[in-house]
């Protein structure tokens, strides 16, 4: 890996979005992900290499550190922010089709449920893994999911619920998705969910944590 990509990897891993950012203290005053990406593009580094050799592996390392309980969520959020700062520079290459996301992930907390902390964590890690995120928010009905599936027919769908009284709504949503698009991949997660429930309602995968979600997605994308 070139020196500039190594630096970009480090900036994302430790959450240095841009030069002005005071975080992390050990990189104070140095270029952040935004400037480093611009420099790399100016130096004719292939945008695909920027994405695949620096950004995605850096976020994978961050996700691994988080799942090993070596960092807290704020450090992971800072890394996601740094990756976002880099993506601003890469946006034209996504628009032109020169580089592509691994796929699209539609995610929402199911109808009747307002809890979004877990959903947001999953979104962030999956996005860091190179996926396009379509976040439908909380209290999401079947219709809203189906509407987005029309727009992104190849998307993987993620359903989240925190309550035992709202997890049952996952079943209706999975049924509706299956009726419209039998081959759609649906993963589910949330505190009261387990594998048995996943199988019972006919979803494809139960993700016990955000890292498991991105691992599943990457597996089906490869």
């Amino acid at each position, binding site marked *: 890996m070139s020196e500039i990509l190594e630096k970009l990897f480090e900036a994302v891993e430790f959450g240095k979005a841009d030069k002005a950012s005071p975080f992390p203290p050990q990189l104070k005053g140095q270029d952040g992900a935004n400037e480093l990406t611009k420099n790399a593009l100016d130096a004719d580094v292939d945008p695909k290499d920027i994405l695949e050799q620096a950004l995605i592996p850096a976020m994978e390392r961050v996700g691994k550190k988080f799942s090993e309980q070596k960092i807290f969520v704020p450090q992971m959020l800072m890394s996601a922010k740094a990756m976002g700062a880099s993506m601003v520079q890469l946006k034209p290459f996504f628009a032109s089709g020169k580089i592509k996301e691994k796929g699209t992930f539609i995610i929402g907390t199911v109808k009747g449920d307002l809890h979004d902390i877990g959903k*947001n964590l999953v979104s962030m890690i999956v996005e860091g893994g190179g996926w396009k995120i379509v976040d439908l928010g909380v209290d999401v009905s079947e219709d809203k999911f189906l509407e987005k599936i029309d727009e992104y027919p190849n998307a993987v769908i993620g359903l989240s619920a925190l309550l035992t*009284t709202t997890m049952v709504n996952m079943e209706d949503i999975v049924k509706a998705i299956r009726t419209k698009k039998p081959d759609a991949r649906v993963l589910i997660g949330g505190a009261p969910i387990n594998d048995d429930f996943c199988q019972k309602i006919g979803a494809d995968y139960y993700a016990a944590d955000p890292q498991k979600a991105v691992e599943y997605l990457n597996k089906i994308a490869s």
Partner: protein
Amino acid sequence: MKYKNLIISSPQELMFGKAPSPVKTRRGLIIGGGQVYSELNFTLPTMSINSNTVKRVNEHYREIAEGALERALHLNSKGVVLEFETLLEMTKTPQIGVDIVSIMNEVCEKYYQKHGLASEIRLTPNDLREFERPAKQRTSELIAPMMELFERGMEAGGDLVSIESTGGKEVSDDALMMCDIKAIMFALSVLGVRDMQFLWKKIVGLANKQGKIAAGDSACGFANTAMVLAEKKYIPKVFAALVRVISVVRSIVAMEEGAVGPDKDCGYEGPFLKAITGIPISMEGKTAACAHFSPIGNIASACTDLWSNESVQNIKLLSGMAPTAYMEQLEYDVRLMNVALKGGDQSCQLFQQLMVDSDVYTDPQALVLAPENVIRISKELLKGDSYVANAKNGALATLDIIEEAIASGQMELSEMETAYLPILREDLNSIPDSESEFIDMMLPLMDQSKFILEEYGL
């Protein structure tokens, strides 16, 4: 803040079962009057609530109340509070909630008339305003069904009323994930306080009209969310401990507006409220493991007046239905406390010390609940001239206590945790005491699309 001095200023007087301002219920429980009672909380098994299932829903609640009170009677219980924390559909359609209160009240009355077992219902509707984002805290049409359930639920037999209100949650959810203590301060000591003033005026008005008990609010969506995130190691425990202390200035507003306790079980800020205002409180600890894990299983009961289990589903266990089993667990815990109370000050102090010592240095969130620390922090929570200043002073005192415990070798924290201590102190010190100056400082830093200032009277 209305309160300027502590009602309980000595740690020795911050004791379970005894509150300076006990609350008497209509069937004769005297909460905080010298004994501890069980407060059982329960919910449905995994099921939908709709017109097809509502009959079964009602049956579940009757079974829960019957099973729990029968067990309490068998165990010679001195009294029980049943907390009916509604599910969203029961507040959205108040008639569902009202019917359930009536059903449970019938059961309570039957056990009272037939066996002399006193029990009361604490009715806790949902804060539906959370359904709208950005929330319309003062103008939402969703306030009407909430208030209807309070009013008609009290008529149907709810004697104590509470809520887990959500003013400021639009800001705190993100702030918790970022460990942004300034944004937490803004959420709780500015938005939370202002929303509590608005909401609790209404709730106290409704309760007073019917001679019912406006009990109190819980910062569950803020400080308990922090606690659960810390248990999962998503955020540092030291941060969660600060959020708990900051939540005091928000939850105390219910008392300023006329609530009299017992404060709600999941409000672990309760000990501070008891020290400052003298109201009785409800707490939950090891008996709440059915709903969530916590680092404060024993210490939570050190100065409680009701002892709760947070929530348990009505599912079958080997012994019987889960709420009945939890009734038994609560009753045995309460018996121990009541035996200690009968034995006098010395036995109370000894028993409390064991509960405190078994948890206190295992986690900063337990540390802040030790009676001597509750008193020390509470004094700081009253020192300023604004809610912001009070919350800041309380949080800084909490940092002092955590750092002293580390320095003395009594508490061990990982480097991941201790790295946050200087950052949190620096951020807290940067906060001005004046609310208006704090708002001016924070607004440019925040995503203002997430909340509506006018809905908080700003």
